[in-house]
């Protein structure tokens, strides 16, 4: 197990190297001088030169990268030019809403998808199965921000059941906090559920065909017990993987959905920074979210390895 953990972590080093390289170079693909782009059209040449110097843009590029990387490794993502505060601090201030939203969406997704997937697999080929699969097919074609807009239109604007914009932190009370997150959470969660339902169904179908299920039935076990205790437990691992992999896309989906419901999370931070040409913040947000996603996938892989010994041996 230890060898597996070490190998898995070592394999991340080249990935992280490329990730930092790409994020570092984002500022350098701007047409023309990055300092001029940051300052805008009205800037004087002296100002541009001074900013270039402050950002270290006048040094050779490899030196800039090493400098940037060593700062990043020490947890220094630079300073926001516009907000006059360290980027890391700005990210910490905006992280809460995004994570709250992603977690709530994941909960919604699991509550919907696992029962639906199990039922679809159990009633395979019937009307229920076809309906559920049809719905999930449509679900995979809808981007979450679109569902968010539709929810906003129907539930927020027409029926006025829930607020369509804004955010209250958890400290304002659980219900107040959740009220603002239900619509965005549902928009993300339902779309996510479409994918997980399909995964659950196919994973369940594979297990239901195996001999030990026949044995369990032959022993005269109740169908419910066969389904939940025997089949679902074995079908759960692939589901866990897809849940882990898609949590990353939930976090990024949250970034987009946030902007619909004006939730002050990482999405708003990055979009505002684009308008302000605050590249340090853009780089910082992309880096932090990528690290979160990589971290979650690592965790899931390790969990998987701990639960299923075959994984440790199989994977190169």
């Amino acid at each position, binding site marked *: 197990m230890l060898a597996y953990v070490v190998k898995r972590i070592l394999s991340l080093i080249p990935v992280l190297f*490329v990730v930092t390289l790409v994020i570092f170079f984002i500022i350098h693909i701007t047409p023309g001088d990055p300092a001029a782009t940051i300052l805008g059209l009205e800037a004087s040449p002296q100002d541009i030169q001074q900013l270039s110097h402050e950002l270290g843009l006048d040094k050779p590029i490899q030196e800039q990268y090493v400098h940037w990387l060593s700062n990043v490794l020490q947890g220094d993502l630079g300073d926001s030019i516009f907000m006059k505060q360290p980027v890391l601090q700005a990210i910490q201030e905006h992280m809460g809403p995004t994570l709250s939203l992603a977690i709530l969406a994941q909960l919604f997704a699991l509550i919907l998808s696992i029962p639906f997937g199990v039922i679809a697999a159990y009633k395979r080929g019937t009307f229920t199965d076809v309906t559920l699969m049809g719905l999930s097919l449509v679900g995979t074609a809808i981007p979450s921000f679109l569902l968010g807009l*539709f929810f906003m239109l129907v539930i927020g604007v027409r029926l006025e059941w829930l607020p369509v914009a804004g955010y209250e932190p958890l400290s304002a009370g659980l219900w107040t906090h959740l009220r603002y997150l239900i619509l965005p959470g549902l928009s993300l969660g339902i779309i996510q559920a479409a994918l997980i339902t399909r995964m659950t169904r196919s994973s369940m179908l594979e297990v239901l065909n195996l001999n030990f299920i026949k044995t369990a039935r032959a022993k005269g076990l109740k169908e419910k017990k066969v389904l939940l205790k025997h089949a679902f437990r074995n079908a759960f691992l692939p589901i866990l993987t897809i849940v882990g992999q898609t949590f990353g*896309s939930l976090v*990024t989906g949250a970034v987009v959905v946030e902007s619909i419901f004006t939730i002050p999370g990482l999405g708003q931070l990055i979009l505002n920074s684009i308008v302000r040409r605050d590249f340090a913040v853009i780089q910082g947000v992309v880096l932090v979210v990528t690290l979160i996603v990589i971290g979650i996938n690592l965790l899931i892989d390790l969990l998987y390895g701990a639960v299923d010994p075959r994984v440790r041996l199989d994977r190169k």
Partner: protein
Amino acid sequence: MSTIRSREDLLALRKQLQREQRTLRKRRFLSQPALLIGVGLLILLLALALLGPLLTSYSPNEMKIVERLKPPGANHLLGTDEFGRDLFTRMIYGAQVSMSVGLAVAVISSTFGLIIGLYASYYRTLDHILMRICDGLVAIPAILLAIALMSALGASAVNVITALSIVFTPNIARVVRSRALVIREQTYIEAIRSQGAGATRIIWRHIAPNILSLLLVQATFVFAEAIISEAALSFLGVGIPAPAASWGNILQAGKLVIYKAWWMVVFPGTAIIVSVLALNLLGDGLRDFGDPHIKAKRPRRKGKLFGKTV
């Protein structure tokens, strides 16, 4: 078939076999509802995008302030937007933008993905370098990478295509590489190699043709994802800049007037869903079509080999 006596007989036999193969293929094509619906919807959308301008008497950028935010009706089939522009006309021009961005991204990322994947599968050292780069690019969440690239490049249609091609190429390259690695190990490749065929010949004449059907399927999914991503970028204001119409920036304007004009959200939204659904059905259908071994009864293989973008 009569006995074979001459070269002419052989050629005739070949022709007959080809004819039979075509009939079989046609029958298989017609027996797949997903493929048919996908193709049908897609043709409809393309026809609307290409011939649509003939169906409308308005220009996409013609503003009439007195006509602003009129609901769908006789004068304006789908209503008007916040500047009094005809929404149907703007949707048609938006379809042209969405379709051409999607198609361009699909073609560019398939081309580069194919080249990278093939060469990576053939040369070990190259494989290590290229795949590590792809791993790194894939690790950054797609829409965030696209947003970051757009922030640096600036909002424009060409830049949307560039950014999304950078985002999707690694996905294609990985899929191509893993299939090419399997094909590379087959006996017939070894046989050709032992006869002295060079790398270029093996890669392009013997490995590549066996990957094309897989590539076509993946390109269809990239097409769909690119439409979604373009809409998301334009919706967030970093995609296609105004005044050009795109489904995404109509939605962006629609969100601001959501209390007054439901049509500005519902129609472009539906257009996105229908086109993505059409492409997904087409992709699923093509996958089953390309692989006759898949029977409907067996649990479906995962068609799309990479995750959802937004």
